[in-house]
């Protein structure tokens, strides 16, 4: 009896929340090294367990049947998805999880508002404003993430989808959201208005991700991540729940940092990215001019010789590696080369792939030790001493036009200086321009040769040739 009242003591529950968010911070702290990160994740999970148990102890919590139902559904969906997702599909998975979180926030804020209307007049402003904020951001995040998922899963076309007057429509939708929110906050008690907010925010979420191209996905996913976190923090303000406030804000901070890092790695402002992709072809000033320029194409046997007799080889992977699922084959090739005394490392551009750190996860899956994965600033000074740079399915992140051609659309974007290696071998599916639709002078450079074909098949052929040498 005494035990039960103690456990339900609000101060005790709040103390548990403090323990929970402290564990989240420890989790993120341990994430700063691959050696400790896994332990951190377990600690975060323990924190979450404590937070859930603490909430279930609250006296007013009831309807346990429904709670079990919800948790059962979530577990039945979440566990198999997490177990079976392929590492190449991780960006989609993260987008989807992100959306689900935003959706939960939007639903909770709607239910909370309906509850408070049923109980009496509008809640106090210090509750109402966070509810409205959570509803808008949660709904944007849910729908935006779903579109991002659709693009990454290739249910929707990855190229930017431009609609006429898009920016005006978006501003209009935002105005509707804010206008209705102000109406409710200034005293109008209306469930209908709240629904208008949710719907307008939903359309806004769709509209703002649709025009963004696949190559900009790392920024979009990071930003949506930040949105979901902020909406959760707002829900925490509305519900007076410290664990939600802190956890939501930590996620908001993480998403914001990643967004800034990704935008920086593309040398583009966030506003510029949300205006829509690189126009998808058409204008490619300074580089293309429609002229046929000669490229040197090569064959696997030749590549094998170049690699096997090199001292230092740097692999620069891109999204093409993920598409072709070539990570294991590349690793096999690297192992074979290392057996012959070749030094192999990997140059990872921050926006290679479709989400922050995408390449690192793929290569980790293929058992590449993480200390062989070099960040851009670390590897760039090494290219002049590199015998062969092997570019696999990367294009824009190796485009020297970003460094040299002042009127190139990607001018100023930091790149991997692969062209400074003694020889560059580019594995490419075809002569199509990269995602950004910008011609790449690297392909026409004197020290570059191209090996056409599916990345995985090409690497397999090269590997076979190396083994026969």
């Amino acid at each position, binding site marked *: 009896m005494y035990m039960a009242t103690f456990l339900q003591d609000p101060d005790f529950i709040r103390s548990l929340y403090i323990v929970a968010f402290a564990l989240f911070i420890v989790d993120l702290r341990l994430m700063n090294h691959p050696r400790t990160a896994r332990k951190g994740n377990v600690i975060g999970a323990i924190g979450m367990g404590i937070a859930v148990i603490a909430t279930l102890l609250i006296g007013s919590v009831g309807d346990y049947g429904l709670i079990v139902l919800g948790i059962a559904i*979530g577990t039945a969906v979440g566990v198999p998805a997490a177990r079976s997702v392929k590492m190449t599909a991780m960006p989609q998975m993260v987008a989807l999880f992100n959306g689900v979180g935003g959706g939960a926030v939007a639903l909770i804020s709607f239910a909370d508002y309906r509850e408070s209307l049923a109980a009496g007049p509008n809640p106090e402003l210090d509750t109402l404003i966070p509810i409205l904020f959570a509803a808008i951001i949660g709904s944007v995040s849910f729908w935006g993430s779903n579109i991002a998922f659709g693009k990454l899963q290739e249910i929707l076309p990855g190229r930017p989808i431009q609609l006429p007057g898009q920016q005006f429509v978006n501003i209009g939708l935002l105005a509707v959201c804010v206008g209705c929110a102000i109406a409710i906050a200034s005293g109008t008690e209306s469930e209908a208005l709240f629904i208008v907010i949710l719907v307008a925010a939903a359309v806004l979420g769709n509209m703002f991700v649709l025009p963004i191209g696949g190559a900009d996905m790392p920024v979009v996913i990071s930003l949506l991540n930040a949105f979901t976190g902020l909406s959760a923090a707002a829900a925490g303000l509305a519900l007076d729940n410290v664990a939600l406030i802190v956890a939501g804000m930590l996620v908001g901070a993480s998403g914001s940092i990643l967004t800034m890092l990704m935008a920086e790695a593309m040398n583009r402002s966030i506003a510029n990215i949300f205006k829509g992709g690189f126009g998808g072809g058409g204008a490619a000033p300074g580089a293309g001019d429609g002229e046929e320029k000669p490229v040197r194409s090569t064959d696997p046997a030749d590549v094998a010789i170049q690699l096997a007799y090199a001292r230092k080889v740097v692999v620069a992977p891109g999204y093409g590696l993920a598409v072709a699922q070539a990570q294991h084959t590349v690793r096999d090739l690297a192992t074979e080369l290392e057996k012959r005394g070749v030094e192999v490392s990997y140059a990872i551009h921050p926006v290679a792939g479709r989400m922050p750190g995408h390449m690192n996860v793929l290569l980790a899956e293929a058992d590449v030790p993480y200390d062989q994965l070099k960040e851009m600033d670390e590897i760039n000074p090494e290219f002049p001493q590199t015998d062969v740079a092997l570019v696999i399915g990367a294009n824009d992140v190796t485009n020297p036009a970003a460094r040299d051609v002042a009127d190139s659309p990607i001018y100023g974007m930091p790149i991997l200086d692969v062209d400074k290696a003694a020889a560059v071998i580019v594995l490419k599916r075809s002569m199509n321009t990269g995602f950004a639709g910008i011609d790449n002078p690297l392909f026409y450079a004197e020290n570059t040769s191209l090996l056409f074909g599916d990345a995985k098949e090409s690497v397999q052929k090269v590997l076979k040739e190396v083994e026969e040498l």
Partner: protein
Amino acid sequence: MDLLTELTILVLAAFVGFEVISKVPNTLHTPLMSATNAIHGIVLLGGLYLIGPADGFLNDFLLVIAIAFGTINVVGGFLVTDRMLEMFKQKPSVRGGDGPPPPAGRD
């Protein structure tokens, strides 16, 4: 708790977040995102808290979905993060501690 206290906590949490997360290396950015996905699954608490007092079918329905969504985040997020982090390995020769390092090969 009054709003200002909560905002204080919010702002401090933002600074702690920035401080801690800016030290996460690029290599771990994908696991970081999926870990934060798991952490924002904490909205689950909102669903748990509200569903008892909530009246009416629609509210219950909305909140069951919210709880399910939150659970997907929490369970799926932590699992998938663990799967990823398990794969990050150091070079075997550098994994000190389990014995003397192998002699430097020279042939």
